[in-house]
């Protein structure tokens, strides 16, 4: 066929094909692509194993849990269209939507969700997040099954009486349990593909998932490509056709890629660039509070830190305003509670923050002297910190403040994250430059972590705290529970086991053409909620 004719035939075929496709589906339009920077490389995309928030973005797009989060991080129905909670708060019954399907077209049933939970806590899975179901939300039988004392999966309190009903039984009330029924914690399991491919069941050529998108490509250290899943129950409202997650290990490069238009969203912004970028790009620079609480912990097992007066003096000697707003910046905000700011929760605050500087310093000096220290007998201590930029800067600044205000001989040990955690477990530290990223934006996540029975390693015996938090968690009604949790937090703050300092930031560059983005502390951003507006 001569070239010209061939070209003509191709044009006709394209026209025909286009109008045919147009007649069948929506009017023809250009494919929309969302390019998301993902930061460091993916650890694992195994939905029951992964524990990293960054990989969680991808998993959230390809799997759907019983519940979803909206753009503001609030609970909305997911694969379950409704649910009932028993009066004692111990039984959750989820009712799945009609006609749910896996990306392969097979029906998705309640047992698939039960299988997901069982696999997460199966010792053979070796999952980092088994604790969610063994302790955070104590599903009955989960701890024994995970510990290997009971090997029968049927003993776990996650069962499916029929294809559309999932019943989860808890050993003790966990009023926040719904928040943990999302794709990140409770994705369903497609057992046939796991049985067939083993750990390769999540490779693009094998994967069967139930989210708004399905994965078609995964290049290690480079990118992951997702396309719409036509079998998703709400596929009609998914607006973006293709999502590309690009590995962006260097945050500065990610910013440049965003500036060049190659990325629509970044995973972070280097602290020193926020002001400059804000001046140039205005509200495309998103800086908001995260669920990270940043604090200094004192080792109660190591004198003289067992002296509450000394701990209070050290807390008072931290000028939080100067530390956060003049030195650290980068979107951190001063926080005088152990929990991060949470809507409807009236957190107790350290008195330190409300005091005038002169009073604060005077009281710090007085308590320091009462604890038996002074210019002739200065306290010497070491702050254990990671060698990441912001934590290190924070520890060094606090060391200087303690030195200037009280004359403390404070050193900073900056080390890699693993060494830092090893020092903590060894219990040899004086002061630990500490943080906690909450699993969800509720006071329960933080206060349960500090429960002396949770063996976090703080050596803090407090029957009073244990009794109060137990009482609080048994209350189903949020207002009543939050009131008791505030009492629990007050016990913690009064003990000066920790000196809270700041709430961490979520930092993203979001192109103005991307609609449907909402800042929220747990940092959930499903691609299915977003659209791209032509500019």
């Amino acid at each position, binding site marked *: 066929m001569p070239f010209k004719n061939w070209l003509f035939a191709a044009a006709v075929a394209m026209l025909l094909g286009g109008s045919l496709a147009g007649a069948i589906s929506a009017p023809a339009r250009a494919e929309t692509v969302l390019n998301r920077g993902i930061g460091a*490389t*993916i*650890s*694992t*995309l*195994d939905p029951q*194993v992964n*524990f990293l928030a960054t990989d969680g973005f991808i998993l959230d797009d390809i799997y759907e849990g019983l519940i979803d989060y909206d753009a503001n991080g609030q609970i909305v129905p997911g694969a379950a269209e409704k649910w009932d909670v028993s009066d004692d708060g111990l039984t959750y019954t989820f009712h799945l939507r009609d006609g749910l399907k896996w990306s392969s077209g097979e029906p998705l049933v309640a047992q698939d969700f039960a299988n997901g939970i069982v696999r997460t806590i199966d*010792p*053979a*899975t*070796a*999952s*980092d997040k*088994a*604790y969610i179901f*063994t*302790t955070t939300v104590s599903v009955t039988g989960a*701890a024994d099954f*995970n*510990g*290997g004392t009971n090997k029968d999966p049927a003993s776990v309190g996650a069962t499916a009486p029929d294809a559309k009903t999932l019943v989860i039984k808890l050993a003790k009330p966990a009023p926040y349990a719904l928040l943990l029924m999302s794709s990140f914690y409770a994705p369903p399991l497609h057992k046939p593909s796991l049985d067939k491919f083993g*750990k390769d069941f*999540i*490779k693009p050529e094998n994967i069967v998932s139930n989210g708004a998108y399905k994965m078609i490509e995964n*290049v*290690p*250290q*480079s990118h992951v490509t997702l396309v719409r899943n036509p079998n998703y129950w709400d596929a009609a409202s998914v607006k973006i056709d293709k999502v590309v997650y*690009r*590995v*962006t*290990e*260097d945050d*500065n*490069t990610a910013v*440049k*890629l965003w*500036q*060049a238009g*190659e990325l629509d969203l970044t995973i972070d912004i280097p602290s020193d660039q926020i002001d400059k970028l804000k001046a140039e790009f205005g509200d495309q620079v998103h800086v908001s509070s995260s669920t990270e609480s940043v604090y200094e912990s004192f080792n109660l097992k190591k004198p003289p830190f067992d002296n509450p007066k000394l701990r209070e003096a050290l807390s008072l000697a931290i000028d939080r305003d100067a530390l956060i707003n003049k030195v650290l910046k980068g979107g951190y905000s001063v926080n005088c509670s152990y929990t991060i700011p949470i809507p409807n929760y009236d957190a107790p605050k350290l008195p330190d923050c409300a005091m005038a500087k002169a009073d604060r310093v005077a009281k710090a000096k007085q308590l320091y002297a009462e604890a038996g220290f002074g210019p002739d007998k200065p306290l010497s201590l070491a702050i254990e910190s990671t060698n990441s930029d912001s934590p290190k800067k924070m520890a060094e600044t606090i060391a200087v403040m303690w030195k200037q205000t009280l004359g403390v001989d404070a050193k900073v040990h900056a080390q*890699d*994250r*693993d*060494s830092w*955690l*090893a*020092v*903590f*477990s*060894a219990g040899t530290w004086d002061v630990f430059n500490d943080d906690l990223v909450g*699993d969800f934006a509720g006071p329960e996540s933080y206060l349960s*972590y500090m429960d002396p029975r949770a*063996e*976090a390693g703080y050596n803090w015996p407090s029957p009073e705290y244990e009794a109060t938090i137990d009482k609080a968690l048994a209350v189903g009604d949020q207002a009543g529970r939050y009131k008791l949790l505030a009492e629990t937090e007050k016990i913690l703050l009064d003990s000066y086991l920790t000196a809270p300092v700041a709430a961490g930031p979520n930092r993203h560059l979001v192109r103005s053409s991307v609609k449907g983005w909402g800042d929220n502390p747990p940092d959930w951003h499903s691609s299915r909620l977003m659209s791209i507006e032509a500019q």
Partner: protein
Amino acid sequence: MFAYAIRRIIGSVPTLFALTAITFIMMRIAPGGPFSGNRKITKDALANIERAYHLDEPLWLQFARYVWGVLHFDFGPSMTYRDYTVSELIRAGFPTSLEVGMWAMLLATLTGIALGIAGALRRNQPIDYVAGALAMTGLAIPIFVIGPILQLVFGLRLGWLPLADWPGDFAHKIMPVVTLALPNIAYVSRLMRGSMIETVRTNYVRTARAKGIGEWRTIARHAFKGAILPVVAYLGPATAVTITGSIVVEQIFGIPGIGRYFVTGANNRDYPLMLGVTLFYGAIVIFANLLTDIARGLLDPKVSYE
């Protein structure tokens, strides 16, 4: 020469074994473990994970298990990138590192030698000063500064070159290759210049000149062969370093190579990954040194393989 190569390869086995043993011990001395990053993990769950990766066994057994695996070309599972084995990661990343590294070394060798010879033959003239200044810049400015500057100028401001990523086309290769080549250009040109200055003063070059051979032929046919020897000695190990990737260049330009594994493997206490890349690197260094020695034998009649 063939027998010599075989002897050298056999002789490298104890070296690689020692390298494995030392790396294994050093990794275990470092505090922390591969799965200690999640502080909320329960003791039972941690025990489950450690059992799955055989970390609960005595050290000697873990070491024996590792060596046995290596003998079967199995470097074990990565504990950081849990969807992959170490062999898969190296297989996926090495071709890219090799490609960037080879282009960078080619560019560095050709440019460095040309600049070095030019500097030596035109000593204390403008071209020597320019070559010297270039070399000093290349040596003094670290690549983690050069890379972002190139990105800023050629990628963002001028828009001539793509900023990062590795789709395999020519344009995406330019900046990472140049960044990686710069320090090597500097080093090669300095070596070449010094060596050439010495060589042109030797008796055999003077003899060549006395015979009335033209200047260009004297340099190209006689002096060059002698002057290149120190450069060849440098190129072996330098190539081994360059083709196994650079974490800085890989991270800045988003290149899916293996250079980052040396750092992430160590930081995350990913024992199999760290051991795997170290062993792989060791083997490449040994091979590069062997090639260097063979090349020196071909260039220098004083070297014998016995």
